[in-house]
């Protein structure tokens, strides 16, 4: 029980530090990430309840959410000033790559959804 209390304290501290240190642009992307994750969870729960009948549609939708999540996370990593040393892309280039990958992702999802 004591350990649970400790964990709760750590989580609260984590949340506070997140709120204060993260710049606004990254918070925006984080909100988007949470939204996409929720959509994915809802889709998966629906699939578990109702069954996988049009399996390609389920896969297409689910992979679309996972893809959006991953691409946005990658964009966030690239835009984070702290990681400037590992990448050498300008923010504009990062966003352009993000759009390029999204075009491919959505074209395939449209084709697959059936």
């Amino acid at each position, binding site marked *: 029980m004591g*350990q649970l209390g*400790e*964990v709760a304290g*750590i*989580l609260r*501290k*984590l949340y506070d*530090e*997140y709120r204060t*240190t993260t710049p606004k642009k990254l918070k925006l992307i984080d909100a988007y990430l949470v939204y996409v994750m929720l959509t994915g969870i809802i889709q998966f729960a629906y699939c578990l309840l109702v069954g996988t009948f049009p*399996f*390609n549609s389920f*896969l*297409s939708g689910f*992979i679309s959410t*996972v*893809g959006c999540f*991953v*691409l946005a*996370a*990658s*964009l966030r*990593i*690239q835009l984070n000033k*702290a*990681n400037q040393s*590992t*990448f*050498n*892309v300008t923010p504009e*280039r*990062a966003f*352009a*790559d*993000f759009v*390029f*990958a999204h075009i*491919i*992702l959505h074209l*395939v*999802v449209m*084709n*697959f959804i059936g």
Partner: protein
Amino acid sequence: MLLTYYFWIKAVKSGSIMWSASCALAYFYMVSSWGGYVFLINLIPLHVLALMFTGHFSHRVYVAYSTVYILGTILSMQIPFVGFQPVQSSEHMLAFGTFGLCQLFSFIEYVKSKLTKTQFDTLFSFALVTVGFAAAGAGVVLWASGKIAPWTGRFYALLDPSYAKNHIPIIASVSEHQPTAWSSFFFDFELLVFMFPVGIYYCFKELTDANIFIIMYGMTSIYFAGVMVRLMLVLAPVMCVLSGIGISSVLTTYMRNLDVNQLKKSVTSTAQSSTRARRNDDSSSYPRKNEIAFGVVCMMTFFLMTYVFHCTWVTSEAYSSPSIVLSARSGDGSRYIFDDFREAYWWLRYNTDEDAKVMSWWDYGYQITAMANRTILVDNNTWNNTHISRVGQAMSSTEDKAYEIMRELDVDYVLVIFGGLIGYSSDDINKFLWMVRIGGSTEKGAHIKESDYFTPQGEFRVDKSGSPTLLNCLMYKLSYYRFGETYTEQDKPPGYDRTRSVEIGNKNFELEKLEEAYTTEHWLVRI
């Protein structure tokens, strides 16, 4: 395949989403062309795992792998042959697992950067206990309920080479699936066989992300090339790359020691003495550096020149002849051409009904479809094992039984390859045992036993002492029809088979249910 790997290395080095997306597109092209894409979708996650274990996992690798996996998976599912396999079959589970691991790793790194060590440790152990057990439980449930299919036969045979021999004769029968002989390695690669370990050594000396990838690619492909001859083509590019690394590293190391100044006599004395003083400090490692360097560089140049000669010779001798037109040297040295295959296919094309169906062994399927433009039963895709087994049963049975099978399959023509007149050794009689094995491997062919076709001593003979089952089966009758009256060689009786070097046992028989339609000039193809 190489394009996919190139883009992958570019993506890992730069961490840009564009290169990762291009990698996924190249992977899509690979999936649409060859079943060997399974190698790619396992090597790339293995590389990511290796980077994790060696501590090279960085944000770049996360971005690269996540993008490649997601885009690559959904693109590969567009190919009908692949379908839903990426989420259902065991061959793709490593990629899926590594994807999950990547997400976990990155998230843990992120949380770690926000907390102190002790706080992070408590949180981590708590999360590990709860989430870890849940994930492991889910995994076990999925495995036990059979939702995750085990490795298919094709790929399982690579891990356990005896599997195909014992369970799936059609995979074992393909000559390209046999283990590779040592001589094949030298024949195809010559010098590269020796420079390959040198390249690996130099890659180990400087472990960057890309070098780890090349090492893994080299080791896995050399294992697979050893298991199956056909996979030499997967080994060839990485052999070239690693040997290139090896040769250029060796040359750079030694050329550094080459001192051109020593060869020029007309240098001023002060400059000469100062260079000699500098070099005297260097030469403490070993004497006569310049001469040895010169010798090594000359030796490498010699090796490279002989390599070029070897490669051009091999390409001209072994890889330039079309397999459909055979040639031989006659007694006076001039070339004699056997164009029987094309002769037969053209005959089929112009002398049979447009919707005629031809039954032959699967080796000739694509050729008949392309050149004779007729429907065949089975072709080189070897997609339907039961169907091929049916054809094998027809070839191994007596004429009456075979006629029933052929009526059932609605066959108009039967095509066999016979090399007994000219001594061609890749004919259907030499392949016949595989037809028997494959024919006997399914339910309907359970009465066909390989041992029936051997003599009591266990030999495969076509002469008088051959097994009566063999001497009366359809393949024998179609190959040797009217051969009993033919003279093939001087001083030998009629009906002397030049490939098997025996006089055939069953001559002068009549075909009851079939009729000879066409035999080519050298009796190579009989319809």
